[in-house]
């Protein structure tokens, strides 16, 4: 839920900036207003992912992601791609999410570009923001 607070802080900062910078910015292709709006767009997807992560996938056996991963902890998105021995190869985060959907959740796989898969990744990475990229780490 802290990402929502972040979002509010960002919006406040952005609006303050706009008061100061009365003249339109010429050189840049996007403005602070754009930045704030895009952040909002992103966080709307994070919010969808949050819901999916907390039961919104309506898995066939009622199990949800947060049961093992409160606040998406212990998902380590910063370590992908990495070798996952039970998938037999180096995989991206979404493939591991699918493993969880298929196994503990006993449900149908999502396509890589399924909006739900994008949203789940957005939520998981958002909860891990600030972590240093460590691809391959176990």
């Amino acid at each position, binding site marked *: 839920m802290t990402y929502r607070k972040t979002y509010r802080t960002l919006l406040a900062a952005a609006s303050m900036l706009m008061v100061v910078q009365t003249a339109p910015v010429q050189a840049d292709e996007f403005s602070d207003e754009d930045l704030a709006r895009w952040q909002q767009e992103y966080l709307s997807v994070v919010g969808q992912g949050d819901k999916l992560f907390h039961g919104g996938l309506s898995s066939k056996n009622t199990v949800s992601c947060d049961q093992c991963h409160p606040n998406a902890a212990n998902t380590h998105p910063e370590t992908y791609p990495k*070798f996952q*021995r*039970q*998938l*037999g*190869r*180096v995989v991206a985060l979404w493939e591991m999410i699918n493993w969880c959907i*298929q*196994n503990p959740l006993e449900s149908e796989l999502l396509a890589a570009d399924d909006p739900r898969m994008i949203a789940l990744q957005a939520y998981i990475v958002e909860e891990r923001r600030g972590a240093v990229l460590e691809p391959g780490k176990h």
Partner: protein
Amino acid sequence: MMIKLAIALLFTGVAGSLSAAPLGLPPVPIPENNPQTAAKIALGDKLFHDARFSADGKVSCSTCHSQAKAFTDNLPVSKGFNGLTGTRNAPTVINAAYMKTLFWDGREPDLEGQSKQPPINPVEGGLPDHKPLLAVIRKDRDYVRAFRGVFGVAADAISMDHVAMAIASFERTIVAGDSPFDRYYYAGDKKAMTAAQIRGLAIFTGKGRCVSCHTIEQTQALFTDNRFHNIGIGFKKIHGREAQTAEQFLRAKRKGADVDVTVLTKQTMSELGRFAVTENITQVGAFKTPTLRNVDKTEPYMHDGSLATLEEVVDFYNNGGRVKETDPVSGFLSGGIRPLGLSKGEKKDLVKYMEALTSPDLERFTKR
């Protein structure tokens, strides 16, 4: 051609501590205290096939690990001297060099340790101890010459350790990869597997969950995790009597009973699996994951040889560790075993895929 290959194998062994590895396999691990030499391998080969090391003079290593049968005996459980049977299925020697523990319950840490046991097991070689075996060797001029050449020992100094080292060295040359799967997965030959086999591979690493234990990696595949799991085989024999069986076993063990003898002669105690070795109660009925390489040639399956075909094996897993869907489930069942919901077609594809794990050059072992 065959001879060339054999020579290549021998000399890679001599050259360094690691042999060249076939496609899909890592280099063979060679223990530092038992380096490969051509003479040692040849000596091991001879010892492996010598039937004099048994009570009736008819049982050699190769009786249960026959080269013509992919180094198995294709029997449910092995036949020892005088036709006596034990409790366990003979695993293949092919690629045993990669195993981190030996025997179904991992009671020996290496091939050297493993090779010492069968000659003196009462349902295998049937010798009272290693003395008669060593006596045969010490009286045999060819052996005496060979042991002197390989280990630099005189006849009366030949020990069971020397015998075991030679046999293990020979077994470390029995390595086979380069299967259609290896060529498909590791060499990029997309025609090496059929469409059904390619679908089967997806089941193997996905819905079938096989790869959880029968590992495939990015550059190599041993098809075993070298771990122990209770998959539900054989548990009916001790169902409801697990505590008594465990207690009886431990009482006997405390009184000095040999684990190797006990698990091969007592039907019920055999089913304790890894527990018999570690006495860890989370390992009751757990057995080592076997490799699946050449699995199409190593029937029947499971530690007790109770499943005759790969189709039966797939059905067993698809039923969540049960022969029939109506069978009870073992309380000790590994968490990874659950009904899989595979369709008839998916099961067929999975079997087809396992047929793609057969190495093409197995005959080289039979043409001696």
